[in-house]
């Protein structure tokens, strides 16, 4: 529990207040300590959202990475380190890495803020001189990147109970509240530091948050949607250029694909000239970012590849990783060149002009004034019907192409559900997305495994052309292809089960209730 400490309450005031009747307890003061804390999180605030504070704490010569509970401020884990790594997997094995890896996954750690903390600890001791409670008085200020001191963050008093000693906290808390009149601090040092540094926690999320109103004219809704998507593209641009981690490019690409999907679904609500202009440019953006993303995916799944091989041959496949890394760097450079091009700059500024209503006047689309709810419902209903039609035609021995087409249609439906989420009851959309996601995961796995197996064959050929590949590496890659094909077969066999869940009564009824509506506007030829 933390308390805000006003300037008038100094250490001696605190000690004097606690020197009264503490029922046989006494206070012992430790030497004051000074340390620098640097806070870290991923670009999408994974740690903050998980209720965790990750800080590098340097006191004297010792640096440790600390994992705190954000709400209680309690230090739950720590690990001594040299420097803060970029990825969780770069951290030596230890208690923080164990917790960090599943939360952070493939995202890079980025510094958020740095503070200097002066602290004094008072120990409350019983008659055996055993510590039964700790009081930590902290005084902090923000540190600028050049190391100079910035804004003072105020003092705070943290009461750290010791497990199994329940009585002393009550006595001491009585003094803190009653005698000193301190009140509980509303938030921790991280939140204060972020505020002082002008950062807003959670200011980026890969989840879409598009605010639409059911009666909104479709043209205006389209502008809102494309505006949110442009913000996502722009937010991820710097991280994509610097290749800080794979997810900047991933989120960038997803936003571009969603924009393409929005453009196609709302084409009748938008000026035809605008659709004609943007559609090929967005397709181009998808193309120039594809090769790097493919290589990112192979590198991210490399660990799984290795684990799929018998222990004796796991080393043999390492040259493949080097090959992938080398080509990823090359493709990334071409990607950066494309992002530096005039074509991209023009697209970006035209996109911005459109969402801000500064684009040159153009003929509006025929459905520009229709209510977005009608357009969206009609569109989702049509997408859903297509999925049902295509899926029902697939039998146990249908060729793979049918499943691939179905996967694409499911993706369209998913994009539509997500773009227009705000228009429908959250309980219904949550269920609809859950059903669809289960089907998509199965179709995605089937497709990914096939693509990966094909890619491995292609990469093997490419590695041979580029020379110097050992037979052992090629043999190990052959084993990988075989393992992928087996898993692909299993995914194919699981399809029927997923399909019957998707077409179950509950899901069918939901689509019918929520989206099957007739209106004047939604009737699209």
């Amino acid at each position, binding site marked *: 529990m933390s308390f805000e400490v006003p300037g008038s309450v100094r250490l001696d005031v605190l000690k004097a207040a606690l020197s009264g009747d503490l029922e046989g307890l006494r206070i012992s003061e430790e030497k004051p300590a000074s340390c620098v804390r640097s806070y870290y999180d991923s670009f999408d605030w994974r740690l903050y959202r998980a209720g965790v504070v990750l800080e590098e704490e340097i006191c004297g010569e010792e640096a440790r990475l600390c994992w705190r509970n954000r709400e209680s401020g309690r230090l739950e884990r720590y*690990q001594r380190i040299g420097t803060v790594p970029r990825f969780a997997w770069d951290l030596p094995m*230890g208690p923080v890495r164990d917790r960090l890896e599943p939360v952070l996954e493939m995202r890079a750690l980025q510094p958020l803020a740095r503070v200097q903390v002066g602290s004094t600890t008072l120990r409350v001791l019983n008659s055996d001189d055993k510590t039964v409670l700790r009081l930590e008085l902290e005084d902090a200020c923000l540190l600028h990147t050049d190391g100079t001191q910035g804004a003072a963050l105020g003092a705070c008093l943290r009461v750290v109970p010791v*497990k199994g000693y329940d009585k002393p906290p009550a006595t001491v808390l009585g003094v803190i509240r009653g005698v000193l009149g301190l009140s509980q601090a509303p938030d921790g040092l991280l939140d204060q530091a972020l505020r002082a540094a002008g950062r807003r926690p959670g200011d980026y999320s890969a989840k879409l948050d598009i605010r639409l109103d059911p009666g909104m004219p479709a043209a205006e809704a389209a502008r809102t949607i494309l505006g949110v998507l442009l913000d996502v593209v722009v937010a991820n641009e710097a991280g994509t250029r610097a290749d800080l981690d794979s997810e900047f490019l991933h989120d960038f690409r997803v936003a571009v694909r969603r924009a393409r999907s929005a453009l196609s679904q709302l084409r009748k609500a938008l000026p035809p000239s605008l659709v004609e202009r943007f559609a090929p440019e967005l397709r181009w953006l998808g193309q120039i970012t594809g090769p790097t993303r493919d290589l990112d995916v192979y590198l991210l799944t490399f660990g799984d590849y290795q684990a799929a091989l018998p222990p004796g041959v796991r080393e043999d496949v390492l040259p493949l990783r080097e090959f992938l890394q080398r080509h990823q760097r090359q493709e990334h450079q071409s990607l950066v060149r494309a992002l530096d091009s005039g074509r991209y700059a023009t697209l970006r500024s035209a996109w911005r002009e459109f969402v801000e209503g500064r684009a040159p006047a153009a003929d509006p689309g025929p459905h520009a004034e229709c209510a977005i709810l009608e357009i969206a419902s009609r569109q989702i209903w049509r997408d859903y019907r297509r999925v049902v039609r295509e899926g029902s035609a697939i039998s146990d021995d249908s060729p793979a192409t049918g499943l691939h087409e179905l996967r694409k249609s499911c993706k369209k439906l998913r994009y539509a559900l997500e773009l227009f989420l705000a228009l429908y009851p959250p309980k219904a959309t949550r269920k609809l997305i859950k059903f669809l996601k289960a089907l998509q995961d199965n179709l995605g796995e089937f497709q990914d495994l096939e693509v990966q197996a094909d890619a491995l064959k292609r990469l093997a050929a490419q590695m041979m052309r580029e020379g110097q590949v050992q037979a052992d590496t090629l043999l190990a890659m052959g084993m990988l292809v075989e393992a992928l094909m087996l898993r692909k077969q299993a995914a194919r066999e699981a399809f029927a089960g997923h399909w019957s869940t998707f077409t179950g009564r509950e899901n069918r009824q939901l689509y019918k209730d929520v989206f099957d509506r007739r209106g004047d506007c939604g009737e699209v030829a």
Partner: protein
Amino acid sequence: MKILATYNLKGGVGKTAAAVNLAYLSARDGYRTLVWDLDPQAAATFYFRIRPRVRGGGRGLVRGRQALDAAIKGTDFENLDLLPADFSYRKMDFALSHLKKPAHTLLRLIRPLAQEYDFLFLDCAPSISLVSENVFHAADALLVPIIPTTLSIRTYDQVREFMARANLMHATLLPFFSMVESVNLLHQETMEVLTRERPGVLRSQIPHATQVERMGVHRAPLGSYAGRSRPALAYEGLWEEIKTRL
């Protein structure tokens, strides 16, 4: 959670000092660490300045009337907790013998703590009893301090034989030399013979030193008051070596 037990049939060989100092180092590494002082003599409990009392006694714990977690006390050190000894632990064998599967009771009681702690150190009383059999079942590794004398080696062999006979060899046996006197020729010779004849003895040795004995005066782990002393560094070496063997 990894469970490490300091055990030897012989008393006064440095079991408790090892449990307390290794647990301190484990906590300093950032691992959430618990020591369970199973010895009714309560030496580990004394070192942490905690009163040797558990509500309901050993019987309450093994019968599940009192949750282990409720009896745990925080020590003066971050990440380091203690489940205190209680004088009633001397009758724990009797309490255990009335239960179903008596040799697996401790493991069953410990299991719920697996989410709370990364390392559990069991500090055992010097005996071969139902409690020690429970410890053998529960532990991932048995840390056996050996004073390099003929008699100590004899008891170490007795432990090994007992474990082999009772089919209890799933735990890694990690013997190490304890209370070693560098000027004692017999110690040196005994260590040489034992290392040669019984592979698996850890390289790290804990010297006989007054700093270790002073733990009783400071009532604290060695690392907290003499962190750079020879024995403190020896425990650090031992801890690093143990981690590589788990």
